[in-house]
């Protein structure tokens, strides 16, 4: 009797009944444990091969497998469908590179013709993102900040679990050639980043690209000299304080500018002569603040990923 019942439970209708009764994954059975272990054994020490041989989900049930293939095919079809519809839409869009397109309207005219006069920035894009549309940019630096906080929360090794293993730097090797090259390259990269930030309103670049370059130079330095060397001047405390001061300044400065703007007050910020380093009102300080935030964030991303702590 019980055997019949057991057999029934493995048929489609038995499973359907159990599924209706609320068992979630009757169609989603485990792979045989032996097969799983064997596959891992077969992969041996070659890690990448191991990654590739991670077993497909153990749909021992044929229909679930079929469903899986249908899902794959449907997704490809969906991708093709989306590309097709978008291509069809592209056919009706305004032609590429034409000066009479709807996007080239009074807004861009004002940015180009009055931009330098109103914002003091020679680089029109910098003037646009840090003055005309500064609220977007404010949101953007907050995206970066919140992502950095989330990564910090996820990857920060617990304070109690500071064992040797969690402190171990990943992929650290003493390498003379690397150290020599870094010794020359890293300060130059750092300087170049500062140049890009300070000239953000005069030439291509600005806080984001310059900050990323500085972050890159810090990553390079850490990679060749190890985190002990960089810990002498950059710790988690530094990261937190720098980010707080830079973002806080950004927030206050922009609040001031928004408030005066909306209430039709004079903001009393001198614009200076366009073309000078010290010009363009708030754009230079804001670029510096953004640069600091981006540099700290980029470096801390790397540090958190490689060691689990800044």
């Amino acid at each position, binding site marked *: 009797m019980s055997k019949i019942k057991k057999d029934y439970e493995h048929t489609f209708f038995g499973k359907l009944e159990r599924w209706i009764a609320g068992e979630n994954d009757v169609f989603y059975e485990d792979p045989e444990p032996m097969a799983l272990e064997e596959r891992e054994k077969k992969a041996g020490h070659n890690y990448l091969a191991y990654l590739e041989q991670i077993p*497909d989900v153990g749909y021992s049930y044929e229909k679930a497998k079929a469903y899986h293939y249908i899902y794959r095919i449907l997704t490809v079809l969906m*991708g093709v469908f989306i*590309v097709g519809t978008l291509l069809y839409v592209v056919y009706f869009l305004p032609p590429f590179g034409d000066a009479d397109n709807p*996007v080239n309207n009074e807004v*861009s005219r004002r940015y180009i013709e009055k931009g330098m006069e109103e914002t003091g920035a020679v680089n*029109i894009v910098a003037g646009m993102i840090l003055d005309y549309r500064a609220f977007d940019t404010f949101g953007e630096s907050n995206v*970066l900040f919140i*992502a950095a906080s989330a990564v910090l929360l996820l990857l920060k090794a617990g304070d109690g679990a500071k064992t040797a293993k969690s402190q171990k730097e990943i992929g650290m090797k003493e390498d003379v050639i690397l150290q020599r090259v870094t010794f020359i390259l890293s300060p130059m990269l750092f300087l170049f980043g500062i140049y890009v930030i300070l000239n953000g309103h005069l030439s291509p670049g600005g806080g*984001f690209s310059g900050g990323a370059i500085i972050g890159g130079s810090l990553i390079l330095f850490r990679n060749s000299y190890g985190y002990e060397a960089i810990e002498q001047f950059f710790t988690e405390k530094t990261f937190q304080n720098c980010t707080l001061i830079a973002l806080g300044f950004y927030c206050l400065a922009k609040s001031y500018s928004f408030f005066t703007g909306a209430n039709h007050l004079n903001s009393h910020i001198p614009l200076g002569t366009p073309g000078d380093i010290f010009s363009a009102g708030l754009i230079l300080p804001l670029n510096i603040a953004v640069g600091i935030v*981006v540099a700290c964030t980029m470096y801390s991303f790397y540090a958190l990923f490689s060691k689990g702590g800044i």
Partner: protein
Amino acid sequence: MLEHFLENGEVVTSVILFGIGLAALLLHKNLIKKIIGLNIMDTAAYLFLAAQGYIEGRGAPIVTDGVTRMDAYINPIPSGLVLTGIVVSVSVTALMLALTVCLYQKYHSLNMDYIIMKMRKEEE
């Protein structure tokens, strides 16, 4: 039709890339590939936007020699928007990679389906 597509090469490419990225984001079981797909999708959208700002025969939007006529420079707005977008996508990428590392620590796999299966097994 083909001629129109050839003239609008940037836009067509960006649309195709968008489709590839979206399919990879949905289809791939491997988390790293999913994140690469996400990045491809985002950059495709940015390429689309940047292509809209381009105007044949005009210069980059940086005032040179004090010329502030509209017909000297391309449209600066798409560049500004894309600049914002790039930073958003790098933040999201970092967060997803951090989640991947955490998932690998717990389940020793990068395969999303396998991870879900293992999680359900552990829960029972």
